[in-house]
């Protein structure tokens, strides 16, 4: 299960940090951030509720980059 979200982030390094934070969130199989297109593609692990996982992803991203946003 893959889903793409629109994001907002100010710098390329910060986008990189978001990617790592998202990928490390439980329930996420892999995550890719495309800084130029301002998009995050998240692949979920089997049987995970997307919305709850994404809330956690957003929380983790905010932790590493307080100025970022994911439009859920």
């Amino acid at each position, binding site marked *: 299960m893959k889903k*793409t979200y629109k994001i907002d982030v*100010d*710098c*390329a*390094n*910060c986008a*990189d*940090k978001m990617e790592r934070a998202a990928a490390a969130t439980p329930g996420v199989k892999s995550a*890719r951030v*495309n*800084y*130029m*297109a*301002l*998009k995050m*593609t998240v692949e979920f692990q089997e049987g995970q509720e997307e919305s709850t996982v994404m809330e956690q992803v957003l929380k983790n991203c905010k*932790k*590493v*980059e*307080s*100025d970022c946003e994911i439009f859920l």
Partner: protein
Amino acid sequence: MNRKQKDMLRRILISAALLVCLQLISAQQFSTIDSLLFPGAGRWLRLALYLVNYYIIGWGTLKKAFKGIMNRQVFDENFLMAVATLGALALAIYENGDYAEAIAVMLFYQIGEWFESYAVGKSRRNISQLMDIRPDYANIEQEGHLIRVDPEEVEPGSVIVVQPGEKVPIDGVVAEGSSALDTAALTGESLPRDVEPGDEIISGCINLSGVLKVRTSKAFGESTVSRILELVENAGERKSRQEDFISKFARVYTPAVCYSALALALLPPLVRLLFMGLAPLWGVWLYRALTFLVISCPCALVISIPLSFFAGIGGASRAGILVKGSNFLEALSKTDCVVFDKTGTLTQGVFEVEGIHHSTMEEEKLLEYAALAESASSHPISRSLQKAHGREPDRSRVEDIREISGAGVLAIVDGRQVAAGNDKLMKQLGVEYKDCHSVGTIIHMAVDGKYAGHILISDMIKAHAKAAVAALKELGVRKTVMLTGDSEAVAEHVASRLGIDSFYSRLLPGDKVEKLERLLAEEKGGGKLAFVGDGINDAPVLARADIGIAMGALGSDAAIEAADVVLMDDDPLKIAKAIKISRKCLGIVYENIIFAIGIKLACLILGALGIANMWLAIFADVGVMVLAVLNAMRCLLVYKL
């Protein structure tokens, strides 16, 4: 400019103006108010004013740095800038010296951040605009009025109206009207294409002259334009080695510089104090350490590499070349072996009469007899005869058509006995025939039992095929190979005419994969193998190659799906162009990597030696970033390649 950018710009301007004003008043002038108030009042006032200025420009960064520490994300650029400027400020307070430096560093850092955000936003918009072929609406006729609807709501099989100047929103077939279409946004080809009722029409083209009524054949989501947009938008997800390298580098670089800065602040003074018996000069070494921190922000690197690839992919798609990811752009630049499928790639896949030889009657007449004799067949060969003849065959002139399987046809045309077929047929009839020295499908003709000449039919080689092979050679492609299911004679003919190094003929689709694997095994030294096909029956081969290039992909979903690089039109010259674009882009990427890392390292060394001051450090950070971004944008300029 968005709200954040406007806000930051305002702060930058206010802070800069305030800084200039404060600089005009010297510390001595401030001391003059001491006599009016209390001793030291001037010094305090001066400090307060500078602090206010520092607050205006640096508060956001301080807050972010603090949050970072709270979240155990210590080493980011906010932290670096906060430490560097606070450190410089502390030094200045201690010496009642130059506060301007700390504020200027923060000011320039913010200008750099602002510029980065602005430039990236701008180029993001530019590139998306280039690729913006998304139609916003579709026109539907209802009770004599045209109404605009969301293209997603249009069901396949509905009739939509496309007016001149509008984009075709959905794939379909022209039901009424004729017009010229501008396909430049899809193919990079500037020559308009004419369409008439019955012609297929592809979404994303722009209608130039007449009103068209189009019966849609697909839903919006399945239409060409949606598929292309999806492909281009997702292109950034497959990252190249350079991008991965840079993000790994940035991860190591920042902490490394931070620890070096700490070492620089502590070790030399301690060594001086304990072992050399000299004054420790804490202030000097602290200043050098702070300079170090300013240089250490990795942003120039981290931004310019993906930006270069993004611009390269954007520029390529403008030229009708869709690249599915920056990793493929990277692979493309290393192509040293190009394998072609013959039919549909180097040749048009359309059979045409190429010549009439040894004819005993008027060539026109011979062709007419052949077309009439074959008139009952729907085989591509017979169709090519009809086409060359140019008139609808008059069936009433033909009677008694007998097909002899695997040999040809016998028929009575205008009362004369006509035989049209291959050498087997001639042998069966006992007619002496002349072999043809050209390669292709040969139709021998016998009229009234006597040999009347033969017609040569062959698959036409594409106009640019030869130039395309030559262009690849010029680019240093080591080897060109052609794979085909056709006979050896045809394969040899095509290969030698185009200057292709080697060919394999009589291949079944499965054999093609096997041959390709053997060729892949021969690749060495990091060279990449590209396979070019039309995507119709070579999807497994496209998938197996290092780079699968599908051409003539307009309207072919299978090709868009299977390939890594999609050429929107079927011009083989685009292969060389794609390689050129990839090389230019990769060249810029390496320039940026070397330039940015080089300048940073040079400045770090100069900083450690005490030659570089904060101002140079700011250039190393902001200046390099600006230059790298501008350089990255050159990837968009691919027209002249």
